[in-house]
């Protein structure tokens, strides 16, 4: 049993078999520096809860094969429900998955964000992500021109 403690003090117990899905935690366990309670200072409780929910669902376990076995189609369906989140949670989750190094979750989340971007104009993308356009009008025009004239 491994215990993780979020930035806001919440603790979560996981079976080792789930904990190793989080590559960062796995590395700590293998290096022998995993204490009884592992602090996860970058990730707050409600996000860590979601991460663990994902990992529990996705863990491949021979012992618990009966309980957790899901077909690929079922898992995909579960994933598409899982990512129905508000944007702030989605982004916090990405940061957590990146820090904890959970490849499949990171792929899922990044694909989701990519889908938000596809087919959109730069203005729309800036709005979605609340990004400030730090190009001067001339700089932007030059890039747009190069994009359209050379690379499209």
């Amino acid at each position, binding site marked *: 049993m491994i215990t993780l403690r979020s930035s806001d003090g919440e603790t979560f117990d996981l079976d080792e078999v789930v904990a190793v899905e989080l590559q960062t935690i796995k590395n700590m366990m293998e290096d022998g520096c995993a204490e009884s309670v592992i602090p996860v200072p970058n990730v707050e409780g409600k996000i860590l809860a979601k991460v663990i929910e994902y990992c529990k669902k996705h863990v491949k376990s021979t012992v618990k094969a009966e309980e957790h076995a899901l077909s690929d189609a079922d898992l995909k369906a579960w994933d598409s429900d899982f990512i129905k989140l508000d944007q702030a949670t989605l*982004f916090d989750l990405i940061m957590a998955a990146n820090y904890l190094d959970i490849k499949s979750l990171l792929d899922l989340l990044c694909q989701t964000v990519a889908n938000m971007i596809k087919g959109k104009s730069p203005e729309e*993308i800036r709005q979605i992500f609340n990004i400030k356009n730090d190009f001067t009008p001339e700089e932007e025009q030059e890039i747009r021109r190069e994009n359209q*004239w*050379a690379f499209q």
Partner: protein
Amino acid sequence: MAYSFPEEVLEHVFSFIHTDKDRNAISVVCKSWYEVERWSRRRVFVGNCYAVSPGIVIRRFPELRSVALKGKPHFADFNLVPEGWGGNVFPWIATMTRAYPMLEELRLKRMVVTDESLELISRSFKNFKVLVLFSCEGFSTDGLAAIAANCRNLRELDLRESEVDDLSGHWLTHFPDSCTSLVSLNISCLGSEVSFSALERLVGRCPNLRTLRLNRAVPLERLPNLLHRAPQLVELGTGAYTAEPRPEVFSSLEGAFANCKELKSLSGFWDVVPDYLPSIYSICSGITSLNLSYATIQSPDLVKLVTQCPNLQRLWVLDYIEDSGLEALAAHCKDLQELRVFPSEPYGAEPNVALTEQGLVSVSEGCPKLHSVLYFCRQMTNAALVSIAKNRPNMTRFRLCILEPETPDYQTMEPLDVGFGAIVEHCKELRRLSLSGLLTDRMFDYIGTHAKKLEMLSVAFAGDSDLGLHHVLSGCESLRKLEIRDCPWGDKALLANAAKLETMRSLWMSSCSVSYGACKLLGQKMPRLNVEVIDERGPPDSRPESCLVEKLYIYRSVAGPRLDMPSFVRTMDEDSELRLS
């Protein structure tokens, strides 16, 4: 609240974004996105090699793995672009050997590729996988030998429609025995015999081979052995499909084909003998693409074959199919999406086949998914075009080539304005259009009014005055490529719509009414356009300004005027006067 992801997360998100449009959009969002995007872009498509320079490309995208380039304008296919015009790939290769040692893919269309370039490619890119030379020229089988010998991980070698100096078929033996990675091999354009035993061994040791397009010189008797070594083939181009009628050859072929359960696409069939066609019947139900444009067989045999292919989506065929054959096609091939009918005797004075507008009308009626058409014929009516337009509002590419220029509606003797007008009016998704027959300015008014999604337009021997060109340039919002020959269009419309030319990839005009003076004016007015006058009669400034230019090629560029122009190409920019004097 603004959110900033760390770079590695942005990169990960961008790894799921592939199209040019999307990559270009994300590059403009903000400075950090621009940087992450340009370092993570792996493939570019350069639609006009002169719109940018190799130096600009490598500075912007330091880590490309896949590059696609297009060189000469489309009318080069009709021999309208003189020899030596340009489109040489060598400067690109030379630059990329330094910048992209990990380059994997090169796809070139209408470019001049020398053996030196091929040798450089084969030696410089250790992980080179894909070489597609589409309608290229300038190389010989020596260059191919270098590719075969040195590209250890070659997956694709596709020479479709290229002009190769075919010194011998020996080059194929240069593939080492260790080469097992081929997925696609297209040598259909080559004339000479390749070494059959080398070919058989190569095919036999590449388990992932899915596309094999042979050349004419591979005799029919050799085909079964090849097929037995590659039963996993999905696309096959046969060699000459002719032999003395011998039952053992037939059954050998039949058996070999029956074994290829994955086959979806067939081509080749040079010199095909009808008696041998049934050898492919067993796999016809799986065929989705059939290229019979070299198959000189008559309608009854074509009908027998085509009606065996209920899942056909694409058919390229000679006009031997005739109206009756097209009717049968319409009745049996309900999934048909693309039809190309080529002329068997384009220069004959009289029709040699019973192919008329009716054939196309039948197919447009019977095939609900038909959206791409290239049709050569000798006669057309407005009524037929109107029918086709109303039957197929989903048309996206419509290229009609009535062989004799300025042919009117043969029933009413009217121009074909109304017919083509119906096409642009009803087919709201039309992206490509080639016109022919007798057409007045009214036609171009229809185009400017309706063809809002049109991206490419080809016009020949049409229109009455500059108004026609003006309608097109001012009305077609999505226009990217315009190619015109032998139309009375000139200075006024061109200069009035100068700004439009910066929104398009290119404009080609040959044998029109554009004066040298107007070209100079345009070049001065629009410094970011390369206004290139192609004139083989000698320097244009030795003639009066009012003199008409032979050919004109105008394109936007971020690289300025090109530096590799032959003597018969002059650029009309601000400095041209100084440089020419």
